[in-house]
């Protein structure tokens, strides 16, 4: 199971981005590393056993109008499995909403997801097979948040080298494997994607996603990358949704603070905790 530096939403979004490994070695590169090996290295990168993150989500419509959500997220690794929980702190209409997920490495086990809606005062289990819907109104989908299986894709290099913010990257195209193409596209909503992976730290810094519904293209940018507690962390992540070359909607996820390897009680990742809130 791959690791990454942004816990909670960003982190689990990038389960999707970074789990992608290269199935076909590309001789054009002339490198000792195949694409597959690059991603395995990324996958092996240490990202902390736990994380606690304060995040601001800024949703921007086509007219520039902004909606702001403040969240606090907790995440804990259990071997190859991950449990995470997030609470919405503001605005008033979503305050105390909580989202809990248990992501299992074993592909035979369905991930578990629950949503606590304070208006209902009830935890509801979510059937989360279709992950192509918007997560809480953002430009990120549940697939982005929860991640998808790396084995579901074929990959190829688009460019051997491209500079992004002064750093050399590989540019990779990812397409669902032909045998399961329709299933994967239905679950994730994406026809294909293109990723920019920094060579020095094996980290995705840009992404482009072709969304089937509405024939939209989404652009991911990760910035403010720094090493925190020894873990490479992208503190700002943005996704821009476009259609026919026009910007439709954007989301910025800005990390206010993040701590790694703080002790977290297992009770934090239960449905009871969702009801109690922070």
């Amino acid at each position, binding site marked *: 199971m791959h690791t990454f530096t942004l816990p909670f939403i960003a982190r689990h979004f990038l389960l999707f981005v970074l789990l992608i490994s290269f199935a076909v070695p590309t001789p054009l590169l002339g490198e000792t590393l195949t694409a597959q090996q690059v991603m395995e290295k990324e996958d092996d990168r240490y990202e902390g056993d736990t994380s606690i993150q*304060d995040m*601001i989500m*800024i949703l*921007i419509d086509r007219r520039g*109008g*902004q*909606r702001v959500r*403040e969240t606090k997220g907790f995440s804990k690794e259990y071997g190859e499995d991950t449990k995470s929980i997030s609470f919405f*702190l*503001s*605005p*008033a*209409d979503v*305050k105390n909403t909580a989202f809990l997920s*248990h992501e*299992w490495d074993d592909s035979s*086990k*369905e991930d*578990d997801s629950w949503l606590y809606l304070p208006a*209902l*005062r*009830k935890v509801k*289990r*979510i*059937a*989360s*097979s*279709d992950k*192509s*819907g*918007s997560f*809480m*109104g*953002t430009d990120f989908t549940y697939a982005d948040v929860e991640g998808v299986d790396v084995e579901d894709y074929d990959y190829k290099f688009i460019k051997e080298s491209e500079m992004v913010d002064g750093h050399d990257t590989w540019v990779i195209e990812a397409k669902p494997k*032909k045998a399961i193409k329709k299933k994967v596209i*239905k679950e994730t*909503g994406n*026809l*294909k994607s293109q990723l920019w992976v920094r060579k020095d730290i094996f980290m995705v810094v840009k992404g482009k996603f*072709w969304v*089937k*519904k509405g*024939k939209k*293209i989404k*652009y991911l*940018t990760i*910035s403010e990358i720094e090493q925190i507690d020894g873990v490479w962390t992208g503190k*700002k992540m*943005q996704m*821009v949704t476009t259609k026919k*070359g*026009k*910007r439709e*909607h954007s989301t*910025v996820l800005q990390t*206010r603070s993040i701590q790694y390897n703080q002790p977290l009680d297992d009770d934090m990742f*239960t*449905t*009871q905790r969702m009801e*109690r809130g922070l």
Partner: protein
Amino acid sequence: MKKVVWWLCLILLSSGFVSNNVYLIQDGWAQTEPVEDGEPAEEEEEDEDLEGFEDEDFEEGDDAFEEIEVKLPVPVSTESQGLSYGGFFREELAYSFQEQDPNLGFVRRGAELSKVRSILNLNLEVDLDKDWKLKISGNAFYDAYYSWEDRDLYPYDTLNVVEREAEFRDTFIEGPLTDSLWLKVGRQIIAWGESEGPAITDMANPRDNREQGVVDIEDARIPIFATKFSYLKEGWEFNVVFTHEFRANKIGVEGFEYDPYASIRSIFEVEFPKQPENHLSNTETLYRLFKSFNGGDISFMYADVFEDEAYLDFDKNTSRLIPRYRRIQVYGGSGNYVMGSWLLKLEFAEKHGLGFAREDLDKQLENEVDRPESWSEKNTSEAMLGFDYTGVTDLTATFELGIIKTHDYEDNLMHLELRASSSLILRYDTWNDTLHPQFFWVRLPNDNGDVLRVTVDYDYVDALQLSAGIVVYEASKADNLLYIFRNNDRILASLKYSF
């Protein structure tokens, strides 16, 4: 007219979903079509998939990868310092577009604006220390409709129910007693079970049924003063609840067009309900055991409570019917299981000691029976089987089938021995979660009528939500339970400002 309204609802529904659902339905078909010889090569298929993306390149000067500069707000956690407050103001309007049946005793007769309700909610949350929290919440409303329309024709008690109200809602203190034991004391809502419709194991809180079919379940539960202990051990949660006040279901009252006793009042006088007193001996107790597994949740419960819905007891001395509440015992369980995009739901319960209305009271009185009885005590088995389907992007479809069997059935009971009801709710969230069309349909047990409601909520900004909709009641036979409400069709509109 009724048919036109039903069609209007369907058109409203379809218009809310058309832009996306047609597309998605086509997707679904495409995925189920068998692959045949001679189909286009995969690469060609791929190209077809990506057709329409030709204009993908961003317009010159607007790089979608360019970093968006945003001004970050002051974080709530810093701003609140252990104390937060908020609430909402909501203005609800309803236009009743059907003329009322003059024989039913409802005050409203013609088509007119029938609700102008202003609702204020305030709440305060205080962190008493690191773990303990205090919450105080209250609601108040005033309906201006009654200040200008036939006010004198409504009984005082009716105005107290439908014109104005002020009450504490969630008002409690909560925190840990030990690492595993949690305490919550005060007015609270305890929502159990899987059903979004009938209360099968969800026995703690009464419901607001004053406007049948108009109120969503999230607004329908009425908080009660209770002490709740929650014990968590190795993934199992055990709840014990003691209630300290009795609150009944809120229902329509005399003169109000949702009065459930409207047809009875022409024969008998119905008194105001006699509620159990709030003393120690009337404490209700509820227990639940809950566990989440990979792929599903399961729970079992037992409750010794008052039924929140009244039965009508005939008083021979006054020849009046008195609504009373019976003590009942309920044991049951619920569970869910995920299968792909399907969440299968089950809930069941055995209920002992319910009071059911008899249909032979008038005959008993004609025959001058010594002790005429208007009700009989019975036990029931109740179950709900349903599902949530989330296989269409941004849409949640919920279907529930409810069944109630009355044991030791007698022919003099008003209802049938076996009763089945069903409901369908379609919720759609689009435009980045700012537009929320919803379709709600419920068929009452044994074809006793249908309620259809279509609403659209629009979040103009985070703080301001605008809503519009229509609710239609369908009951063609005079013995249908909903027949007296058949002319209560309404157009709904509301504005909610959260702060």
